[in-house]
Each structure stands twice: as C-alpha cells, then as structure tokens.
C-alpha cells in the first residue's frame, strides 16, 4: 500500500514520518492564536462572517434523550435558520447519531432541504471503544440510512500508547466503507491528546489515511476546539496541501457558542490556511447553541439594536 507516496501504512513508516514533523511550541502557538483573537471584525466584514459562519455550522444534537421530533425540528432550522428571513443561508449539515440519520434525511428531503447533508457520528462515538467489526457496521448502517458525512472517532488509547498503525488502519478501513458515498471526518478528541505535538501528529495520521476533514472533538470532553488547537490543525492542512496538492477540511467542534468565538475561528482560517478554506466545503463548525447567537447578531446588524432570545427559535 502507498499513501501519497509518503508512508506505506506500516507502523515503522508512520513512526518515521510522524517523528520528523517539527514540534509545536505551546507558548508560541497560544500567543499566535491569542494575537489573532484581537482582530476586530466590523460592519461589512462582520456581516459576511456571520453568514459564512451560518453556512458552516454542522447543526448538532448528540444527546441520549434525542427524539425524532427534536431531530425534525433541528432539520427545519438547518434549512431555514430564521423562517422570517429567507436571505439567511442553510447550515452546512445536520449532525446526529446513527439511529437518527434516516429520520433526518427523510425530513430534510420533505421540507426542501435536499442540499443539506446529514452527518452521522460513528465508530462507537464518542469513546471509540468497540471492535473493528462493530465500527464498520456502525458506519455502514449510517451510510445506508442516508448519511453523506461520517464523523468517526479515533482510538485515543491506541494513539497515546504509540500504536499509530492501529489508529491508521481503522481510519483506512472506515475510509473504504465510506468510499465515494460519504465524506469522512476524523475526530481526535484533542482534549485527550493533551499536547499540540500530538494534535499535529494525529492530523497527519488522519490525512494520510484518507480523511476528508479533521475534527477537533466530540463535544463530550473539555477543552475542545480551543483556538490554538484549531491553529495547529489549520497549519497541518495548509502544509499537507503543499505536500500533496490535496485540500483537507477542518472542523472545530465543542465550545464555540457565540458569534465572537465563531468569527475568531474564521480569522484563524483566513490568516493560517488561507481564504481557500473559507467555505463549507473545507471548514465546518460543530455546534448547537451557536446558530442562535449568530442569528441574533445578524438581527442586531439589521435592526441596529440588540436582539432577545425570544425572537429566535429554541430548536
């Protein structure tokens, strides 16, 4: 096997490649992210950023208590985030558990939302603790039910104990299951990887194994999509593009709750990976509460006064 002519998938070739990646200096990376957070986005650029952010939201519900009704409501909101303002774009995707995929797909199709894909979390989300057979079946089920995007988790235990080959194989196998039918997002759970060096290594591991997107977190572990983590991942996709000519997407998820946070993420993308990534094709934000704040900020820009949560729908 050959992956981009860079590794052959063996444990040793992965170790060799990952060990020669430059380190990440924690203080320097955090300082850079903090500096970019001071960017002041006003007026026309803010308006553009809000609409762009809305189009990038993977509107998510991943609760044990999810019901078909809640998922349908979420889909309605995904297609038309504000029923009173049809100039607002649809979100990037609806992200649900495996068993909710067909409900979501059916409802989206029924309400004129064919253009909104359904993303399914997969591979024994969120812990990743299951046999390979179960993970494959989990993925296959979701795709058969209509998922166009698969958000898989990696085996963090294997990664942290240095079994890169194991992690790599899992991603490769899930990639095969996805085939041409589904986009593959690989979730690292960066809060469990702890160091930025690990985030960089995991990014390359996933990209080499065939990920279309690399994603920070499940939303179940904090810290999640902190700006420096996203910075390091954006550097990875930027450099991977130079290396392979293939553009990989990035999806921060978890902890991005308001417009200010979302705009900080867009600034990070703009000044790190570049404007080519500023599209839902290559950047998504996994969130639930964020969408309403984006809508309220948009209303404020239109109306000139601050909005109230009473004027946006709760789901």
């Amino acid at each position, binding site marked *: 096997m050959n992956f981009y002519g860079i590794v052959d998938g063996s444990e040793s070739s992965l170790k060799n490649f990952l060990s020669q990646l430059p380190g990440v200096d924690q203080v320097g990376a955090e300082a850079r992210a903090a500096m970019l957070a001071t960017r002041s986005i006003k007026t026309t650029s803010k308006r553009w950023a809000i609409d762009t952010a809305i189009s990038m939201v993977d509107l998510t519900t991943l609760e044990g208590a999810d019901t078909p009704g809640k998922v349908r409501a979420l889909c309605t909101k995904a297609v038309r985030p504000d029923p009173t303002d049809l100039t607002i774009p649809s979100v990037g995707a609806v992200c649900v558990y495996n068993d909710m995929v067909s409900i979501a797909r059916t409802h989206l199709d029924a309400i004129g939302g064919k253009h909104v894909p359904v993303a399914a979390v997969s591979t024994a989300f969120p812990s990743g603790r299951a046999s390979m057979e179960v993970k494959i079946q989990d993925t296959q089920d979701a795709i058969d039910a209509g998922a166009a995007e698969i958000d898989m988790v990696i085996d963090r235990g294997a990664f942290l104990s240095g079994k890169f080959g194991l992690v790599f194989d899992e991603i490769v196998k899930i990639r095969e299951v996805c085939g041409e039918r589904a986009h593959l997002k690989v979730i690292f759970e960066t809060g469990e990887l702890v160091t930025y060096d690990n985030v960089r290594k995991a990014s390359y591991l996933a990209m080499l194994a065939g990920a279309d997107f690399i994603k920070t977190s499940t939303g179940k572990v904090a810290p999640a999509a902190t700006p420096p983590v996203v910075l390091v991942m954006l550097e990875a996709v930027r450099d991977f593009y130079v290396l392979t000519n293939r553009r990989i997407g990035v999806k921060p998820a978890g902890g991005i709750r308001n417009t200010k946070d979302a705009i900080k993420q867009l*600034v990070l993308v703009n000044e790190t990976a570049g404007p080519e990534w500023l599209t839902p094709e290559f950047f998504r934000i996994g969130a639930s509460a964020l969408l309403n704040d984006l809508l309220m900020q948009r209303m404020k820009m239109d109306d000139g006064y601050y909005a109230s949560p009473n004027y946006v729908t709760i789901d």
Partner: protein
Amino acid sequence: MDFEYAPAPESRSIVSIKPKYGHFIDGKFVNGRNHFATINPATEEVLSQISLGSASDVDKAVIAAQKAYTKTWSKLSGKERGKYLYRIARILQERAREFAVLETLDNGKPIRETRDIDIPLVAAHFFYHAGWADKLDYAGMGKSPKPHGVAGQIIPWNFPLLMLAWKIAPALATGNTVVLKPAETTSLTALLFAEVCQQAELPDGVVNIVTGDGSTGSAIVNHAGIHKIAFTGSTEVGKKIARAIAGTNKKATLELGGKGANIVFDDAPIDETVEGIVNGIFFNQGHVCCAGSRLILQEGIAEEITEKLKARMSKIRVGDPLDKNTDLGAINSREQLNKINELSAAGDAEGAERWNPSCNLSDKGYWFAPTIFTGVTQAHRIAREEIFGPVLSILTFRTPQEAIEKANNTPFGLSAGVWSEKGSRILWATQQLRAGVIWANTFNKFDPTSPFGGYKESGWGREGGKHGLASYLKEGK
C-alpha cells in the same frame, strides 16, 4: 468573496492635544520657545508644536530637580516614595487607552502594540519599581544604598512612553530626581505623563521634562548639576556621551544599538519560529534596538523557512496605525525612512535579493513594506549596520559553531535568538552568544523584572530587575 476586514479604527476622541506645548519644570507647565512641529507620521498631519529646550531651560529644570532632591524627595522614606510610584502606576492603568491612542498618533506604531504591549508594560514598570523603594537594602548594593541625586535621562522615539518608564521608575524608586528629554519626534506622551505626575501629586521638581533635540540632550549631559546619565539611543551618540562625561564623576547607563542574530536550527518548532522571526523584525516597524535583524538559518531548512516566512509576511497588515487590525504601522520620520531606503538600496547594490509582499502604501506619511533580503553574507552592509526598520537580512549556516561565529561577528552585543527543540543545544548556544538578552524559542519579550542591556558597543549597564537598580544607587557601607 474574500474575508476583507473592514476598517476598525480606534477613536482618537479620547485624546486632546494642545496646539502648543512648553516644558514641565518644577511641577508646572511653563512656556517654551523655538517651537517645531510634531507630526503624525502616518498622515503627516501636524499634531502640535513642541518647544526646543535651550540650555537655560535645562538649567531651570536641573535647579528644580536639585531643589526637589534636597528639600523633599531625599527626605521622604522609601515607603512614601513607593506610594507615589504606585499612584502613578494606577493612573497610567486608568488612562491607558488615552496614552495608547496618543502614542500611536505621535509615533506611528499600531494601536494593537501600544494598547497590548507598550502601555501595559509602562504601568508594570512603575508597579514593579514602586515595591523596590522601601526594600533597597535587598538590592545587593549594601546597607542603605544612596541615590546619586539628579538623573539626566534622554530617551528615543521608538518606545516613547515605555523608555520614559524604564528611566523614571527606577530613578524615583531609588530616590533620585529627574530631568528627562523625550525624543524630538515623540514628545506628546511624555508631556501627558507630566499631567499624571500632577494627578499623583508628585512633589514639584521630582520629575522635570524638557523637550527638544540633540542640543537639548547635550545640555543635559554637560550640565554640572547632573550626577547620573541614562541614555537610550544610537551607539554613535552613546560614544559622544561617554566622551563628554570622561572627565567628570557622572555615572552613565547607555542602551545603544544592536544587530541581533536570530539563529534557527533545523529542529526548530517551525511555525512558532516563523512567528518569532516576524515578531523579531517587524514588531514596532523594526524600530527596535534589540530586533532580530539578522536571520541565520541552518541550510537544511533555509528554503522551507524562507517560503513560510514569505507566506506569513503576505498576511501582515500594513496601514493606518489606529486601525485595530494593523500589524505594521508608519515609519516614525522622513529621516528614518530615508535611512531605511538608503541601506536597502545598499543591499540591492551589493547583490542581495530583495523581496516584499505587495502592499498598498499610502501616499501620505512614511511607509516601508516588510522586506527580506536573501543571499546576504557577513560582508554586506545590511548584515552589519543597524537599519532600524522592517528589513530582515537572511544568512545561512551549516554547523552550530558557524552560526555562533556569524552571530558574534559584530561590535554590537544586545540581543540574540535561538530556535531549537533540543534543550541542551539551546543552552549551549545561549552560553556561546555574546549578547545581553537571549530569547530562546521566543523573541522581543520584555518585563520589568528582567534585566535588559548590551555587551560590547551595545551599551553600559542594565535596565530592569535588580541589576537595573544598581546604576541608580551608590553602594551603602
């Protein structure tokens, strides 16, 4: 559509600039003469008229400082002196935004830097030194060390208020009184600081500010009533001061020029290194004596670093210093712009290869795009002379020893940088480098607790920390 940031200008309504200023002597603003314009270098707008202090103005200021020293300041306990400094620190924090905007207007540096770096550090310097005032027995200068008397202080235009703080805070904490001259092109924040002295009810004459040019500075250096000189500026003027005081008992600290080497080993954390290189040379438009103006790259990664640096430089936002998103502001003066142009032209003439990202530079004001020169050798003027602008000379090396030799091959010795992920290599390099401040895996960081100053022709003495106090004290017996 690209993500174009709309203008986000900081409001200048917070500052009020008088049409004309005199000096601040003996606690009062007094009229001056021979006014000259101070301008906003980003627009060439005349901001105000500044008085060119004469020898007689300096004399009045020194007399006021002497009187304050003998009558009030030397009679105060350290504890009470410290409380004045704490007051000043607090007022500076309260009025921080006003100082930041005024500094940006007068100097041309971006509001992001004045707001996030200059002014917070100014307050921190006063806060730090306030605490020393009643603890001088622990400064390593013996029991009950004594101040010199009147300190004459001459500061540069690159960090106007920060350099004022570096000078005035330790002088007052140790019990000296002060006659300070701000730089010709950047007097406004020093004059606003005089108002802070009044608000803090600092006794009259403890701080005196006389504006002017080199002749005013010379009058301070040569005044018989001055006991200690503190100067930050060029090595050329530093040497003149050293000669001028050779026959006197005046003490001097000199913070002078530099040509800092920033050494990158092939195991460096590359992305943070690129940030450090940018911060090293483009911070404050490169108007930094300790700038990392010589980038010395290990051959194996020279190309990669240079490419990444170019990509990163393309993201540098050059323009209106008051815009909160501006990274690189205006060159401080036409004179400085001419000097940068002249040395850059020498780089071209000597065969180095110039590159800069395309920037829309305003016709009004003084601007210079962030620029790198590759193919530079030790023999090039741009590798030896201080450019004091946003211009980086890039050299390469093969062996660690060669990197150190190139880094040390200069009469300067102010700063250096080392980038590597290997701890023992960093410590080895920091030990070999002949420079007073060494940043390893970072660059251009400052703190009041951290001594700053140069080896060789980069100056005499240190500022900041325990070491910085020593130059304002006579050893106690």
